[in-house]
């Protein structure tokens, strides 16, 4: 019996991100389609959670009176991302497209469970935004979600959509990640609002996120503009109390309407729209001056704070007495309001995470203020940083942190990626051009088999660039590795370039049948859509052949020897070659819930060679022993220790068994 606890345990084990709507009620407004209970909807296989979610009858043991009890309760406990999904539903969004990325992923995952909203995973953020623009052009409310770096990918349509404006309300959500909890950089996407000449709204907490998102759609339609909506990790992944709201309707009408002056951005039309953009900004500045988004909270007038987003909460807590101008609209800024506020306080402080965005513009108005002279411009803020940056004497005495071994993340026991990285780690003189996904963990010891990682899709292209620079010196040495989702995201363009411009490198596509890193989302290669329903699947090997790759070999990464041979063969070729490493991620339900056939260590046979330990599988640990203990165990005196497999953790992948030359690792019962 798969008990409730077992589910939890297994689902959390080694989990990436997940939908953290634990014992939460996510109800759609209309009826009783809701889900309660102690079932954690970790984003495993969407289909699995959907079952319980959509049909209460199927959700285990939910009694009708309990359902009612929770439905009656006005108070909901939701994360920012869950709140935003509910708000998009209440706002009447009809089409939503996004690409996963922490901390934005759960928005689309949750939204896909509401009825009457079309949702999809796009292969990348540019595609997702363009889909949303299309839906807006057809006259419905449309929503695109992405993480901060995703906006870089979507920047091309973003900047011109600013000129076209909208028909149905269009909101683009950017989830920024100050501190880089799960990102490769911590860019501040408020700069995009300025650069693309778009209004930006920014909530401080889940309840506000919900209200603000709904207003964003109204703003979009009223001012004929896409609206940027910025959240950060501490809004997305914070839970708070909020309530359901009213359903809204778009002012636009759904249908084909040809408005070339607005939709065909040839220079002549674009020049006209360029003027419209400026007129629109002027009108939006008036909105900024009003109290709709930007509110002055009068306190004592010694210190005044201008702040927004989550920083507002830190200011309120650090300086509860002070006057605050809270900006729910980060762009455009209310110059008049800022001047008045500044004039009313003795000292003005701008408290914002990351860039001095507000500060620069406020200083540009000729207003004196403190900002990044005191507040750090890197990483997240918190109450104590804000307080002590401004009042250094208030720093409390703290216990010094203890020095402890680090506990970095690791690929799961039985992760298919490990087989490839183990082989790469054994190859001398090669350069492994990496990419972003679970497999980036191949960089960490003991495998340490990744030499570069820049952004999604950059593996194959960087290897190509190196090959062209190195000439003969790079021959047989350049390998790039990319995940299935990342390959479809932007890797395919790079592969086309490599074929076209005659690269002689090897691309390893790590096809684990899912987008694992962000918590198991489907993608164009998995055969399922965002709801877990059957969908057309792109065949990776055929795609590679179609763009002109002649050598395409599929290999099972758990078969260490076969994998080694495939890599060697590809490296020896004097042409662009692709090796597809194919085995499912162990967190996929069909693997996770299957009965595992673990390997066990016959410790009496262990010769202490550490061959298996060097795989870095978390199920294997090494026990150090003294010479006396060695002798007592019947080992040679000089044997330093022995390896043990944790049967519960072992997934039965068999990678370590092949490496053991002493028959000390065998399948249980064999």
């Amino acid at each position, binding site marked *: 019996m798969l*008990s409730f*606890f077992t589910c*939890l*345990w297994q689902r*959390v*084990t*080694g*989990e*990436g*991100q*997940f939908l*953290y709507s634990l*014992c939460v009620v996510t109800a759609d407004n209309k009826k009783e389609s809701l889900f*309660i*209970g*102690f079932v*954690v909807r970790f984003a495993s296989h969407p289909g699995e959670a959907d079952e319980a979610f959509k049909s209460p009858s199927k959700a285990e*043991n*939910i009694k009708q009176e*309990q359902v009612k*009890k929770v439905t009656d309760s006005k*108070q909901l*406990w939701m994360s920012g991302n869950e709140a935003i999904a509910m708000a998009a539903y209440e706002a009447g969004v009809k089409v939503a497209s996004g690409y996963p990325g922490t901390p934005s992923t759960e928005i689309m995952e949750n939204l896909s469970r509401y009825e009457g909203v079309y949702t999809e995973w796009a292969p990348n953020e540019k595609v997702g935004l363009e889909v949303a623009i299309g839906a807006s052009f057809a006259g419905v409310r449309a929503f695109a979600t992405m993480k901060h770096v995703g906006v870089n990918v979507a920047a091309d349509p973003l900047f011109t959509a600013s000129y076209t404006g909208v028909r149905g309300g269009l909101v683009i959500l950017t989830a920024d990640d100050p501190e880089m*909890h*799960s990102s490769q950089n911590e860019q501040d996407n408020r700069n995009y609002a300025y650069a693309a000449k778009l209004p930006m709204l920014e909530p401080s907490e889940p309840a506000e996120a919900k209200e603000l998102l709904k207003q964003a759609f109204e703003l979009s339609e009223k001012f004929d503009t896409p609206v940027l909506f910025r959240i950060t990790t501490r809004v997305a*992944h*914070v*839970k*708070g*109390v909020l309530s359901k709201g009213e359903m809204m309707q778009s002012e636009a009408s759904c249908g084909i309407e040809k408005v070339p002056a607005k939709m065909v951005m040839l220079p002549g039309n674009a020049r006209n729209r360029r003027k419209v953009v400026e007129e629109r900004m002027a009108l939006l500045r008036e909105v900024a001056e009003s109290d709709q988004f930007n509110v002055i909270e009068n306190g004592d007038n010694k210190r005044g704070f201008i702040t927004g987003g989550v920083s507002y*909460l*830190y200011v*309120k*807590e650090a300086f509860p007495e002070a006057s605050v101008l809270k900006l729910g609209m980060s762009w455009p800024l209310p110059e008049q309001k800022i001047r008045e506020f500044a004039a009313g306080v003795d000292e003005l402080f701008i408290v914002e995470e990351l860039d001095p965005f507000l500060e620069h513009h406020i200083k540009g108005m000729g207003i004196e203020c403190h900002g990044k002279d005191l507040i750090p411009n890197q990483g997240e803020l918190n*109450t104590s940083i804000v307080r002590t940056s401004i009042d250094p004497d208030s720093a*409390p*005495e*703290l*216990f*010094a942190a203890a020095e*402890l*071994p*680090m*506990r*970095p*993340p*690791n690929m*799961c026991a039985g992760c298919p990626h490990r087989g490839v990285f183990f082989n790469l780690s054994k190859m001398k003189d090669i350069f492994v051009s990496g990419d972003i996904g*679970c497999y980036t*963990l191949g960089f960490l*010891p*003991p495998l340490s088999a990744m030499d570069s990682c820049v952004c999604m899709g950059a593996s194959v292209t960087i290897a190509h660039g190196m090959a062209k620079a190195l000439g003969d010196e790079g021959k047989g040495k350049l390998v790039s590795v990319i995940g299935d989702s990342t390959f479809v995201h932007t890797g395919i363009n790079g592969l086309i370039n490599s074929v076209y411009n005659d690269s002689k490198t090897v691309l390893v596509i790590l096809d684990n049948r899912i987008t694992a*890193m962000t*918590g198991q989302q489907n993608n164009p290669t998995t055969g399922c859509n965002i709801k877990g329903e059957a969908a057309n699947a792109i065949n990776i090997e055929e795609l590679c052949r179609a763009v002109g790759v002649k050598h395409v070999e599929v290999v099972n990464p758990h078969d260490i020897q076969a994998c080694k041979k495939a890599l060697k063969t590809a490296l020896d070729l004097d042409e662009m070659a692709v090796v597809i490493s194919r085995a499912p991620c162990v967190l996929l339900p069909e693997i996770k819930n299957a009965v595992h056939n673990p390997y066990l260590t016959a410790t009496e046979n262990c010769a202490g060679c550490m061959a298996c*330990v060097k795989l870095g599988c978390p199920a294997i*640990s*090494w*026990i*150090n022993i003294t010479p006396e203990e060695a002798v007592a165990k019947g080992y040679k005196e000089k044997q330093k*220790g022995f390896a043990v497999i944790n049967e519960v953790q072992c997934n039965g992948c068999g990678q370590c068994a092949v490496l053991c030359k002493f028959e000390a690792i065998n399948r249980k019962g064999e």
Partner: protein
Amino acid sequence: MADTGNILFSGVGGQGILLASEVTAHALLAAGYDAKKSEVHGMAQRGGSVTAQLRYGKKVYSPLIEPGRADILIAFEMMEAARYLLYLHSESKVIVNTQQIKPPSVAMGQIPYPAGVLDVITEKGVQVVTVDAFDIARDAGEVKAANVVMVGAMSAFLPMGAAVYEEIINTRIPERFREVNLKAFAAGRKITA
């Protein structure tokens, strides 16, 4: 801030921290508090150190606990208790599951698991309660309920009576798992109450 209570949950990805923090949050909400909880998702969860921060009070602004301001540290692994010393003050209560999970450097035999790892906390005069949550959960009928044992042990340091937690378990847990949860909770609470 004195009028806000701060609970820091720490452990290793996979230990049921989120579940424990959710039960606690619901109990606080049921008792009429405002609350905010902050979690970190993403890479760290693949076997790395994880935390959840729960704050409650009349009105909670910041979702993050300040260093030196955690009133309760509930750690699901010994080393993961010591790691958050910076967050403690002399009046903090620390509840620690006695389980040890080896980080990679220890699992590979490069360094030993630090001996007496909780000493850094007790040296400061901070109260530490150790809980053999695993064994207690096994006795209650399900080892995987160790996280609910921990919640039980912590509950004695919070303002709500056992009834509030029982209500949460009764109304939010599928029937067939209720009993073992109630038992695990009660066994945990007995340690500290």
